[in-house]
């Protein structure tokens, strides 16, 4: 896509996400997002989710990405994601929408990917740490009846779905991380103490640079993960994005001082939303352990990036 197209797309995404009462997913249909997505899935997905992150909004867009890999229609289905720290759903999971609003949900169980009838599920809305947005904790008891008819997704459907979800989430985390970093840069450049802006002090400058470097790296890694296309590369991209979020959030909260920790300041929303997205489909901490384990048990470290 050329620069003018890209700019146009970003503008329309911004106005979509800025209008608080509209459902972004529906608005995107009107925008003709599907065509942009088809023309250049890597760039369109990254643009979309980065803007999503920059606005710290919630939507069911991640479900669309995941369901597309499963080969399921997103119109009347949702995804129940494994609880944070787990790779499948035992008896409870996390959803972005109320399962009662769709006919069925897709869920990765220990035995594999299943499509369940949502009528039997109980779900409750939770804000939790992400105070301004709603998540759903969904009970998925053993013996929940399958939806009928049961289509048979390919055996690697969930692995591919997780990879696609991780690439999208990495972009969303980049958007959040960028806002946190830009906030901190603005605040420290304006805030004067001892007669000069605090961004003129070396410790402050170096923290901001560290954040910028890790975010730049995360963006490069995500581009490579799209080119490479493997689940491994997607895990790498999510892990580096998670690390960038964690590092920048830590620096930003320190550098913006007391006001950045208040309800009056908008920083908290990005810190909160980022914390949940960092955990969804695997945190940096979880993924680095998993990747490291595979390397220690005989996998030759993949290069992921090629010239």
């Amino acid at each position, binding site marked *: 896509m050329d620069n003018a197209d890209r700019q146009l797309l970003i503008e329309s995404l911004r106005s979509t996400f800025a209008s608080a009462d509209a459902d972004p997913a529906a608005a995107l249909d009107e925008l003709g997002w599907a065509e942009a997505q088809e023309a250049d899935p890597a760039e369109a997905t990254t643009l979309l989710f980065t803007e999503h992150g920059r606005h710290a909004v919630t939507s069911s867009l991640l479900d669309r990405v995941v369901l597309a890999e499963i080969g399921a229609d997103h119109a009347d289905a949702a995804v129940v994601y494994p609880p944070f720290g787990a790779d499948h759903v035992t008896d409870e999971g996390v959803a972005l929408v109320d399962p009662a609003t769709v006919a069925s949900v897709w869920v990765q169980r220990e035995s594999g990917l299943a499509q369940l009838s949502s009528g039997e599920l109980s779900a409750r809305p939770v804000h939790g740490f992400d105070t301004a947005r709603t998540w759903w904790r969904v009970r998925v008891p053993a013996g929940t009846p399958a939806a009928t008819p049961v289509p048979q997704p390919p055996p690697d459907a969930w692995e591919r779905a997780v990879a696609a979800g991780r690439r999208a989430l990495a972009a969303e985390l980049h958007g959040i991380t960028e806002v946190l970093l830009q906030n901190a840069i603005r605040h420290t450049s304006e805030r004067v103490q001892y007669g000069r*802006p605090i*961004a*003129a002090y070396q410790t402050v400058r170096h923290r901001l*640079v560290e954040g910028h470097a890790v975010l*730049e790296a995360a963006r490069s890694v995500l581009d490579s993960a799209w080119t490479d296309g493997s689940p491994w590369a997607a895990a790498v991209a999510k892990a580096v994005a998670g690390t960038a979020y964690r590092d920048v959030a830590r620096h930003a909260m320190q550098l913006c001082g007391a006001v950045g920790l208040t309800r009056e300041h908008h920083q908290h929303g990005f810190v909160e939303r980022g914390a949940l997205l960092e955990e969804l489909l695997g945190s940096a901490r979880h993924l680095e352990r998993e990747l*490291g*384990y595979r390397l*220690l048990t005989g996998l030759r470290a993949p290069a992921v990036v090629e010239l």
Partner: protein
Amino acid sequence: MTASLSVEPADLEPGIDLPRFRDRFRAWLRKHSDVLAAWRDVHPASLEEALRHDAKLLVLLWESGWGKWGWPEAVGGAGGAAALRSVLIDELWAHDIELPHQYDSIEILGQMVTDLRPDLAQRFFPALATGRELWAQGFSEPEAGSDLASLRTRATPDGDGFRLNGQKIWNSLAAAGNRAFVLARTGTPESRHRGLTMFFVDLDTPGLVVRPIALASGFNHLAEIFLDDVPVPADRLIGEVDGGWAVLMKLMQYERGTYAWQRQAKLLCRLRGLVSRLDTDDPAAPAEVGRAYLRVLATRAKTANTVRRLDAGNTLGPDTSVDKVLLGAAEHAVADLARDLDPYGFLLDDSAAAAHRYDDWWFSRATTIFGGAGEVQRGIVADRVLRLPTEKG
């Protein structure tokens, strides 16, 4: 040069792209794995011995034609995109072949002379590329390290040429070097970066003395250069008189870009070697290995972009300091991983292999000091990329 007879020559079509070059080079590396084993898992007792051994691989690559790809025909190369060289370097490390130490000099100074003085490159570059010569950097001084613009080595006009007086230190590869880039003051003492000129100096010129400096590992990575009225002819200027800083900035984009790519390839190789040798039930090991691996890949992804941008003919700006910041973290992570995951095996070993592991570890610390210390790189990004208020107010 008999070594070149033992391998097939590179038979590539002009304009070959990076993926096809990579595939063909991989096939060649596999085919000649037995010949190339001479540069796998080798542990020379000194840097000088390593350089002599490495030179044979340079000859093999050059004579077979692989090492010529990516260099212009005017300097003896085979033409093609410069990034072909970055592919070659990456693949050597990916096949566990120790990259010749001379590559540090070839990729940075060889490229500079090719860019700025093609006439000198035509004369001298083939000798550098085949290890018959080695070029060093002469920038830092005892009182001008991070604050390089304060350097005091003087170049005074003398007939058509110049005479150099002063002292350089921390000169990588100068102990075994034949020539060096020397940055000297041609302006007033207060001229800072505006009054500097870059010279290409023969290290065997009368009046010039090189004293090797061993890194803590015992390997002579560094040296100091004493210049006592050293004559340099006029045709040994790189760039303009008083234009040395611009030359240095150009050089830095290779040092922070292509060189950083080269280093990450080594780190990935070292990480693979370390993990394959390791037998640990330390519950913390997977996370530590994963973290180091991700740091290397972060550097790899970012520096790959830089190599692509250089290859597309872009002039790189202060953004390449980000590459150096990332690389430094990866360097330390991999070196510390080797020590931390097997402390007994790492710390109590007098073998030749261990000597090289110690050298890798000490060198990792040097990577965040040379070419602009980590603090300087961060300052550059702060000022010129993030545009923060300056420290000087």
